[in-house]
């Protein structure tokens, strides 16, 4: 049972580090907008083709 003297502080430390992480993220504004980022990830990062400007005009 001696192992518990290490495990309990470890468990508490783990819990505290998660709480600290949560506090940090909240203060940084990670949870301010919960809607847009979920959609943003659906958009691909491919650059758009701006050169099509002149072609379209001729049509």
């Amino acid at each position, binding site marked *: 049972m001696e192992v518990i003297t290490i495990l309990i502080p470890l468990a508490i430390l783990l819990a505290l580090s998660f709480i600290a992480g949560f506090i940090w993220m*909240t203060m940084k504004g990670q949870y301010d907008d919960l*809607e847009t980022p979920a959609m943003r990830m659906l958009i691909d990062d491919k650059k758009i083709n701006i050169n099509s400007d002149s072609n379209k005009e001729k049509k």
Partner: protein
Amino acid sequence: MSLCIHCDENILIPIFNDHDMDHKEPFCCSGCMTVFNVINNKGLEKYYEIKRNSAIFKRRSPADNKFQQFSFLDGQDFLNEYSYQNQTETKTMEFYLEGIHCLACLWLIEKLPEYLDGALLCRLDMQRSVATVTMKNNAFFSSVARELNNLGYKPHPLKRNQSIHDLKNKEERKMLLKIGIAGAAAGNIMMYAISIYAGADGKLAHLFNIITILFAMPVLLYCSSPFYKNAWNAIKNRTLSIDIPISMALIMGGIFGVYNEIIGVNENFFDSLTALVFLLLLSRYFLTKIQEEGLTANDLNFFYEGNTVLKKEQNKFIEIHPQFLKVGDVIKVSSNEMIPADGVIIEGHTLINSSLLTGESRPINTGLNEKVFSGTINLSNEILIQIEEVKENSRIGKILKKIESGWIQKSHIVDLTNKISKYFVAAVFILSAVLFLTLYMQGKTRTALERSLTLLIVTCPCALALATPLTLTRTLSRASKLGIIIKNNEVIEKLATIKTVFLDKTGTITYGVLKVDSFNTISNSQIPIFEVISSLEKLSVHPVALALKEYSLQNGANIFHPVNNYQELMGKGVYGQIGSHFYEIKNGEIFEDNKRIAYFTLEDHVRKDSKPAIAQLKTLGLDVLMISGDSKLVAEPLAIEAGIESANIFAEMSPENKLAVIEKHSHSIMVGDGANDAMALSRAFVSVAVLGSLDISLRASDIFLTTPGISHLPHLITISRETMKVVRRNLVLSLIYNSISVYAAFTGMISPMVAAIIMPVSSLTVLASTIAGTKKLNENLKQGIN
């Protein structure tokens, strides 16, 4: 009927691009066509692909893109007030964008830096419809605004340091922190508490006990602060609040736990109490979140100011922001623009639609030296106005102010849960006093103290406090999917007690649009008459012209003849030459070469769904009344057609009169759409704005219907009544659990372990009862309108 490629609106008269020979891409208006072309020319046509594939799809309204320079955005005064200067030689400005609706918009707007030089970063917050744009210092925000405007999203710059918004953000973060910490602490405490219940003994049990206390302290001292604050406010204002017994239980629980630790008993209620704090905070958070959907009042202020105005300065017109308008300035207002301030016409004459102020749907002919008001719309000709009143001194500004004060004065009700809390607190105190005294008489002082403390803790009304927010959250979120947006949680409880319904006429019971009522031809014309009408009225924006155009289109007129010598007479009619014939449409008559060939009448029609909805409202036991700014002559036949008795008609009501009538009827609901209703809406017991409402009414109302007409109104009433049934059922259930706890505490059967079972079970029962709802409620929430 085809749909517009850009905005998916039904098209009356389709227009096509010149190069689109096969007419494959129909548009409803030139605005949409322009935006479509802009998007395509930039190589952004993927927008339409994303839009088609997007599941989150809301209809957007037709694009209204007037070309604007937005040069006022680059003025130094303006930049100082509206933009942020970053350290990295860049600047940032926020724009509220009209017309944001789906993923495709997000894509289009966040691609901005790729097609606009100088733009570095563009981020859109979909919930608020706010885009944050960062630019190089030498670039111009006016180019961003022009670009956004061309894409069909009308930009409104937002003032820097919007302290209200910042404050709200901070509050929300704090709330999230409290929920997160309470959740984490509750979870950890549970682990150690279970070890104690499972039979940990000696030093280990003592260690675990200390750990639970350590985890519980931040929850009791920090996370629970909202309960303490509410309870303290309630005590100070001598009102009731369910937070009073909750705070009591939390404080007692804290004292009990620490006291036991000191006397060496490894017993406390922290596992149940922290879980309770977590659940309560969470349910309240969801409820507030749901109410914030849709428009927030603070974001709406700038709508009535419009965007850019053309101010005359030394024979030149410069663009400025309406904020900087001063009394005495001369401004130019083009056709179809909103007038930004009260003033007098000093040049030109025009038709003005003042439905925002008066509810009068017909345009008013206004000429030299006549007064015009901000918020009204200039329909036909360019005019010059000398400004007399600006901002809060204008007529609409004054109405807005009244609305704001009405918003505050609005009667708040003490909801059912809080009403119960009075009896609850009294009962719990008496019971624990009785318990303490009986045991004390028997000489068991310590047991007496312990048991009465335990009673106070275990009767903590957690299920009671959960019952209402849970039920309301479910109803509100389901209702918003049906298109009923409820902005205030008290409304549900108020709605269940409604006795009278006031309906506005124009736009609520009726379509709010003129339609041809009768059309009689006297003699045949040389050119088919409907082709004459559509050709002549093609350019006019007058409501009569629109009605005639629609009517002739329905009658198969799709050929447009070239018109010579076309002339529109202000508020009278149009005339022009088609081929060798001279045609004239005026005062409900049509002439060919000065010979009367046809006459017609126009009428605003009652919506198809108004009559059944009003009938349903009556079967629900409500009085239905109509309240209108129009004359009795116009209002009465319409009301009778819709099924309202003539005794129940209030006609010729000014906004102020409407207010007075509403205030006379307690427990009434007001349904309306225009600014003339806004004052009444703001004071009514419950107010509902219908689709097509002006922003000002939206702001003043508790509920917003996103489907046209009042067909949802009976559902809304039923939903509220049924929701209140579920709330009452939940309250009864939680009171039963509380009685069990009281009995257990009396007999001394209760221990932290029993509490740890009863509390979650009672909360779960309430949750299950909420999800189950009632049959009627579920039916109404599911189908809504069919």
